[in-house]
């Protein structure tokens, strides 16, 4: 199964079940989001605040269901030639933009070539190099001509990875500062109504949506509420109906309080994320495998899961997330169990003895301030084996600068999202071509020709079993060489009040089928 889904308030949900039969139209859902989007063009950024809101305004060629399998969206069907080099999408005939114009194949071609392949980082990095050209032979047919077979394609053309935008609106002028970025026109279940920055974004029901009888809700109001405590209070008081992200600590506060909580591995902003320590392999200290392994086995990851995540997630078992089961290698990291004595021994062997104050050496670790509880715990755990951890808080721009551009760091803690396919979010971490050039990619500066070859081969293979073997082979090498240390896989929890049902938090269009009960 792609996504594990746990229903927490099972009892309360069961109470609501009989009501679900009575289909209701109408109602407003107020959704709490933690930060202001800035603009509402999901094709020019991977920023989560933009995606969370703007995805409801648009469609992808396909949508992804709870298990990550592609379902029709703007494309009602698709065919792939046996050699994998031509992918043909047939568009639904009656889809229209919010201004009444029809959605055509030219719009799709334009969106990929002029927007997504230029400005959408994941699509630019993960899909563009595999595509030779996109053709629009007739208004309802789109053909992707591929340079090589590209297995993850269908997982890279949903509304989060590749939203389709109207050419007649965004085709003129500079897309990165287009006026329509603030007054978007899409084809999605909801139409844009207004946006008050740092305050609210209001979307209303698209009466002419091409999917019959959808959506059910009349209005979506996104409220920007930066403080997590305030979000929870507002949800409990009914001022807000839906909270996009609930912290593991707050889950306890919401239990049995008339709220449905659903755990997913992803959604807008990334999926299958693994908390990962990256070692700067360009530093002599970390060129020594014994030092990397010592740090790895000095960390009690079970304690991290228990204390930091309150048990909501799992200890990472392999470099690739367990949410991608066909590529995941269970037990890959079993050779490095928590063992402080082993860590001490390894460090002694590596010629890093304890000094007079019991300290062997000190290392810095760059991370976002939101990871502070991981930092505190790691500091404690590493102090036990004589390593002093100096934590440095940075924001995204600061991290991109220190870790990826200047490479002036010892270690870094990053939540690396694997995506739905290792080709999307895993390969970037190990690809030697990315070193120093691409932010949020190969932090370790890891270089291994065999690993590069395996990832390239797996990306160009169509058969999933065969791809899985290639990814597993790569993981065996990674687990032995430890350029990173994979800590925990966090689950993401979304909460909504029990008078709603049908939200799909794993999808960009989370409210397409949602309805208000009674």
């Amino acid at each position, binding site marked *: 199964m792609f996504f594990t889904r746990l229903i927490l308030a099972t009892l309360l949900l069961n109470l609501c079940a009989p009501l679900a039969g009575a289909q209701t139209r109408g109602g407003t859902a107020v959704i709490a989001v933690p930060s202001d989007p800035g603009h509402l063009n999901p094709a020019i950024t991977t920023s989560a605040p933009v995606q969370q809101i703007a995805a409801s305004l648009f469609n992808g060629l396909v949508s992804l269901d709870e298990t990550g399998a592609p379902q029709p969206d703007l494309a009602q069907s698709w065919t792939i030639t046996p050699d994998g080099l031509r992918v043909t999408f047939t568009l639904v005939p009656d889809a229209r933009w919010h201004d009444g114009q029809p959605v055509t194949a030219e719009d799709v071609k334009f969106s990929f070539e002029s927007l997504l392949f230029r400005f959408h980082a994941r699509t630019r990095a993960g899909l563009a190099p595999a595509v030779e050209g996109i053709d629009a032979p007739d208004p309802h047919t789109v053909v992707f001509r591929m340079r090589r077979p590209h297995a993850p394609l269908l997982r890279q053309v949903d509304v989060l990875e590749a939203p389709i935008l109207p050419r007649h609106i965004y085709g003129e002028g500079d897309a990165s500062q287009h006026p329509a970025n603030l007054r978007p026109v899409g084809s999605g279940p909801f139409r844009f109504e207004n946006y008050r920055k740092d305050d609210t974004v209001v979307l209303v029901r698209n009466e002419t949506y091409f999917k019959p009888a959808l959506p059910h809700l009349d209005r979506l109001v996104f409220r920007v509420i930066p403080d*997590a405590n305030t979000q929870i209070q507002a949800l409990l008081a009914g001022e807000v109906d839906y909270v996009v992200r609930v*912290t593991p*600590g707050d889950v*306890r*506060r919401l239990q049995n309080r008339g709220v449905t909580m659903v755990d997913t591995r992803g959604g807008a902003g990334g999926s299958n994320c693994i908390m990962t320590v990256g070692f700067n392999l360009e530093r002599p200290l970390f060129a020594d495998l014994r030092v990397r392994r010592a740090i790895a086995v000095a960390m009690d990851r079970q304690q991290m899961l228990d*204390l930091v995540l309150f048990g909501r997630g799992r200890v990472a078992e392999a470099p690739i997330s367990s949410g991608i089961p066909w590529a995941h290698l269970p037990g890959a990291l079993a050779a490095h169990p928590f063992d402080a004595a082993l860590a001490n021994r390894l460090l002694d062997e590596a010629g890093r003895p304890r000094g007079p104050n019991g300290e062997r050496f000190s290392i810095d670790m760059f991370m976002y301030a939101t990871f502070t509880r991981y930092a*505190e715990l790691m*500091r404690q755990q590493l102090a036990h084996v004589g390593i*002093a951890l100096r934590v440095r808080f940075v*924001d995204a721009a600061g991290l991109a600068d220190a870790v990826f551009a200047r490479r002036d760091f010892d270690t870094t803690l990053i939540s690396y999202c694997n995506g739905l396919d290792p080709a999307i979010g895993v390969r970037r971490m190990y690809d030697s071509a990315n070193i120093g050039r691409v932010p949020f990619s190969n932090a370790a500066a890891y270089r291994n020709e065999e690993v590069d070859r395996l990832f390239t081969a797996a990306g160009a293979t169509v058969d999933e079993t065969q791809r899985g073997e290639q990814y597993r082979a790569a993981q065996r090498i990674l687990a032995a060489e430890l350029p990173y240390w994979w800590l925990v896989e966090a689950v993401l929890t979304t909460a909504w009040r029990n008078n709603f049902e049908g939200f799909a938090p794993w999808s960009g269009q989370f409210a397409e089928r949602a309805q208000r009960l009674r």
Partner: protein
Amino acid sequence: MNRVALAYLLGLGGLLAMMVAIAPTGGIQALPMSRAFLPPGAAHPFGTDDLGRDMLLAVAQGARTSLLVGLVALGLGGGIGVAAGLAAGLGPVVLDEALMRTTDVVASLPTLLIAVLAAAFFGGSAMLVALVLGLTRWPVIARLVRAETLTLRRLPFFRAAVALGCGPLRLGRRHVLPQLAAVVAPAAGVIFGGAILAEATLAFLGLGDPELTSWGRLIAAGYPFLDDAWWMWAFPVAAICLTTALVALASDAIGRSD
């Protein structure tokens, strides 16, 4: 300084010295861990935090940072303020004019906003907060000192000193400085407490110093557990309150001594 004020300051000093004494040296990682979220009890008088560290020791450790921030800001702000105020009040008119205009400019800077931006750009650091506040909050003191100096200048004893040939330096040191305590004390207390609070504000915004335990960071760490672990924020808040209250009482007593 009168006896009451001295008693308050001694009380404060004793309390803080005790905290610093029981605090384990060697940073945050030196705090021993036990079970998380233990409420206050015999083993842990202030309870334990979300990672199982003793809150009493944490508050004691935080005392050092918070005090340092307050004292550095006060030392800088008080030093610059008194020097500028005295120079303006005793020096030539041109100097007075120049200093007072500088004071006006600095007084109109949005200090906390600048501290927040600096921390956002360059990473949170307790010393940075102390420096920014010390370097920007001195105008209050400078104005008070200057006003007091100008008042003193008109008094007979001062004129007598001038007539006896006292230079401005000696005038400032012997005749003005001793009179200033009462005027400066309340403002000094505000700078001291303000710096500790500013550090707490930055910690709340995620711009705290990751390397140092401070009261502000402890409160910010307890904030997500507001209603299920009150001891995580209540004790550090109490520490800040006690400190500022004692400082306020001392400056109140100093103000009353004339």
